[in-house]
């Protein structure tokens, strides 16, 4: 699926009273514009469903194509529905524009808005500054563990925890989890076709790689991905991925390899935080935390000690 082809002028044409105030950001399936509506800044996201003039009769894979369109629609609906059901400083919220469909310049589009978060994502921060201070990494862990807990309270799993989806809000230094596009509602049927692994591959949990167990995924899968993110923020290294690795090598490592303890790479890391990261990276879900509240409590206790 391609990314919509839209200029800033096109955005203003599609949405009245919407003023583009910055450069667009192109993701896997979305284009995002920073916009002002009635003086308030939002991230407006556009998804391309299909081109209107595509001659599908000549295409042998029509069914698959339509299934894919329906899946993209359903995923966007789910993303919006989850955002609406959650209200937390650690989770991105739906903005002024609800999910809307439109046809524009031969494109069948979906769009909606989210609150604008001023700041950098963790991937950018790591690229600019290298590993984070231990205290900041623990604060990130606590905020995102809270976000994961709140998502789980609504019977959902995020499934795409990664540095690019975590923003540090500059106004209050709170970490905010973005993008529910991969989220999984346990009460609903799976949106993901059999054999297709959702989520960004270097942050996948072992259970996400067992496609036959996909229905059994719970918040502990998100905790594993959070473990990878914390490992990276503390050490500057990925616990499983090395440059040049094939997917098969990577998946094999996620399933079987025990990475070096973060303490070995960064000696500023204490035993308690080291053990938390290693526990989050346990291969089996029952080896992690049965409640996010236990993890959050541990992190709070360490943070309090650091402040004394």
């Amino acid at each position, binding site marked *: 699926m391609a990314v919509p082809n839209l200029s800033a002028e096109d955005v203003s044409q599609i949405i009245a009273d919407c003023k583009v105030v910055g450069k667009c950001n192109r993701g896997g399936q979305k284009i995002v514009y920073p916009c002002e509506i009635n003086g308030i800044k939002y991230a407006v996201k556009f998804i391309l469903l299909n081109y209107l003039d595509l001659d599908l009769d000549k295409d042998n894979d029509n069914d698959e194509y339509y299934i894919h369109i329906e899946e993209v629609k359903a995923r966007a609906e789910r993303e919006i529905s989850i955002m609406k059901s959650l209200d937390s400083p650690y989770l991105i919220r739906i903005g002024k524009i609800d999910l809307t469909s439109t046809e524009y310049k031969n494109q069948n589009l979906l769009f909606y808005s989210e609150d604008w978060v001023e700041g950098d994502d963790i991937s950018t921060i790591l690229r600019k500054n290298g590993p984070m201070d231990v205290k900041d990494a623990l604060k990130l862990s606590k905020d995102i563990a809270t976000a994961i807990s709140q998502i789980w309270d609504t019977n959902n799993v995020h499934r795409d925890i990664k540095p690019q989806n975590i923003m540090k809000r500059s106004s209050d230094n709170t970490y905010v989890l973005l993008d529910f596009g991969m989220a999984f509602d346990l009460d609903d049927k799976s949106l993901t076709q059999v054999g297709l692994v959702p989520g960004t591959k270097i942050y996948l949990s072992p259970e996400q790689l067992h496609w036959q*167990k996909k229905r*059994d995924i*719970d918040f502990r899968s998100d905790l594993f991905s959070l473990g990878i993110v914390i490992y990276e923020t503390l050490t500057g290294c990925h616990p499983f991925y090395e440059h040049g690795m094939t997917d098969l090598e990577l998946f094999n490592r996620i399933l079987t390899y*025990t990475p070096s303890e973060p303490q070995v790479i960064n000696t500023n890391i204490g035993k308690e935080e080291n053990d938390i990261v290693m*526990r989050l990276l346990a291969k*089996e*879900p*029952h080896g992690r935390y*049965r409640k996010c509240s*236990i993890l959050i409590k541990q992190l709070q206790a360490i943070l309090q000690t650091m402040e004394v």
Partner: protein
Amino acid sequence: MSLYAQHGYGKSTKIEKGIDANILSGIILSPKAEKPEKIKEFINHTKHNHPDIDIMFDPQFYICGFSGDLSDGKLSEYPYYISELSRANLSVPKNIQKYAKDVIDFQNELNVSKIVSPTILIDDFNGKQSQIAISLAYESISLLDAENRLMISLCINENAFKNLDAMNEFLDIISLLDVKGFYLIIDRSNNIKEPLIDLNILTNIMKFCYVLATVNEFEVILGYTDLLSIPLITTGISATACGWHNGQKMFSEANFQRSNGGRRARKRYTSNQLMNSILIIPEMTTVNDFGKLKDIMSATIYDKILLTSPGDSAWSDEISCLHNWSSLKILIDEIKSYETIGERLDCVTEKIVFANKLYRMFSDKVPFEPKSNNSHLNVWLAAISEFRNQIGE
């Protein structure tokens, strides 16, 4: 880590004496052995005299799923009991709700702080019974303040632990239950006598207990366990429970089938030094003949009865039971004095190595019968080693 009495027929004053001697920290009651009014009376009496003692009522619902010529004792007098439940009965969600409710309702009328959920025997973690057991757990959770009061009971055949993948998947499910803890019973129906057990089975039971108790911080109480308590207590479980008859020291479905009786069990002595129980006659008397009796004694207050002349002593069933509890308690207290699991495993390992040395010393002198010999010790050692590898200790 503490020791509970596994209640059964003929309790007389054993439990009272075990509590008075500070050996027992709790009791797991058996409705099969006592009428409902007697159970209620016993709970109230014990609570009044010993308010700190933890009293749990095992509803023994698993017996409802057994078939054959059942010996269900007083269970038929309990309002929730249904004999010979069929798989069809257990497949109906409404029935599951009713079974759970009836069992919980009965316990709500008892003066107990914890409530034990009903369960059925699980032969295979991938099987239908494990789904039913989980359904009974979910239904029970919905009926009370589960996080603070509910112990999920699980009765699992030891062979189920051979399938590690299935066990891990089962752990993934039950570790998410928002409950106080688990009351775990291992069915030893393959007739291998305690304390001998298959290496893989013991390793995986250790992991099962460790994941629930240490990693996920549930209260785990292991019922019907005698000397196997020793390797298992290292995993961080809260308590083990042991009774006086063989049927309360090791769980087997056969214990709930009517039997034609049998000869009275020969008198035994639990030796902490040998990490086994041995026959008083001829094994202990032979050790005494070689002047080595003190080497195998457990240092309980009951030892003096045997010290002068073990063969002639008045080693009653009650003394035997109190001594066994006391021996287990001494070992448990020593193990729990170590803070980390690694240290606890070291402690048990040293004890096994020492016991093996003693056995070697007696190898051509004392005619140990199969149940009294050291065949279990090397299995325990290997299981501890394998368990250490699995948990990285």
